């Protein structure tokens, strides 16, 4: 729950500017980007995600290092990705 997970923005949703489609460890889900302060995001940008919300924009190097680390911790990260896979955040 407290893990910040890096995700790559795949698509900004035109009809819901507070949501973006994000790829996280092969899972593609809608993530809320409404908390990013004065930062515009575009496909290819990386964000740090907490429980469905992007809390900060990060660079690709940091994202890759964070992913390596998360993959190394095992169960806790697997559980988080499994929960994300079940997530159904979407428009509407």
């Amino acid at each position, binding site marked *: 729950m407290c893990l910040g997970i890096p995700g790559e923005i795949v698509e900004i949703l035109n009809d819901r500017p507070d949501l973006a489609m994000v790829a996280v460890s092969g899972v593609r889900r809608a993530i*809320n980007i409404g908390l990013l*302060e004065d930062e515009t995001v575009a496909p290819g940008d990386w964000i740090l995600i907490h429980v469905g919300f992007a809390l900060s924009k990060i660079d690709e190097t940091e994202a890759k290092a964070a992913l*390596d680390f998360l993959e190394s911790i095992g169960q806790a990260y697997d559980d988080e990705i499994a929960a994300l896979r*079940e*997530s*159904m*955040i979407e428009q509407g």
Partner: protein
Amino acid sequence: MRFVDEYRDAGTAKALAARITALCEPGRAYKFMEVCGGHTHTIYKHGLEDYLPEAVTLVHGPGCPVCVIPMGRVDDAIHIASQPDVIMTSFGDMMRVPGGNGSFLDAKARGADIRMVYSPLDALKIAKQNPSKRVVFMAIGFETTAPSTAMTVLRAKADGVDNFSVFCNHVTIIPAIKAILDSPDLRLDGFIGPGHVSTVIGCRPYRFIARDYGKPIVVAGFEPLDILQSVHQLLTQLAQGRCEVENQYARVVPWDGNPKALAAINEVMELRPHFEWRGLGFISQSALRMSAAYARHDAERIFRIPGGRVADPTSCQCGEVLKGVLKPWECKVFGTACTPETPIGTCMVSSEGACAAYYNFGRFSRERVKEATRQ
């Protein structure tokens, strides 16, 4: 050394460890508290304590959101879940947390509709799909998760989802750190500051630690090297006679935090006069509740909450573990009566809890455990 040796930057870590050793004043012992449960997880998983000189001890702090929820609040949530037409939702970590009358999983087995969600937005979605049900989100966590709850409530209000409410158990990190600093049980030399909480609150709120208590604090990232680097920064400050707030995790944590996230919290929630923390007791102004303007989405106003206090089982020493007074393996029931499968205390439930982290990884350092038990 197993996990450290597996770590890709083992060479860098060893070099850093040597510099840490060189900074230790002969004959002096140092105790640093890592506030965040995520850091505790890294420390045990990567065997970082084996890397540090004997003079440096890492003490685990209260920054595990599931661990600090008192049993009475779990019972209150189960009471809400047992009301007619209620769907209770919460994060997976919450499901096995024991209350006085069992956990969410036990209540579910007795017929309550309790569902695990990844995000509060998922709970909102369930509310939209079930207009005849009252959907409650049991919100837990520090400032890392509070903005997500607040944003979800704002969305519920905007979309007119009146059957969605929040049972708010969000806590704030600064009063907990202050309670630990004021506790006579423990003398600390500095803090490894929480990384993701600081993404939201920034580094300024920690200044009182340096100013009023004369202790250094370094906000740290979650990789093994981040933690070793932070220990190095703490020791450097002490060696130079400085006490400051430093940000080792500046690549993610802005000095001023995330003002938009703070604004969302302030819009939807307000400080409670006091809140009970498991192990730490009542701490004033240390938790958030829904403000009156959002009463429609406040489970504490919608449902009658028993609000009973339940003492922890006498065998459980989570309180001492959360305050850093005891190491997990020093608890009487650690690994015997209390395991991740059948937890007695909260510290054994969440993967961020010190006991669960130590149970899962720390035991590989057998020699160290034996050493520690002998002391």
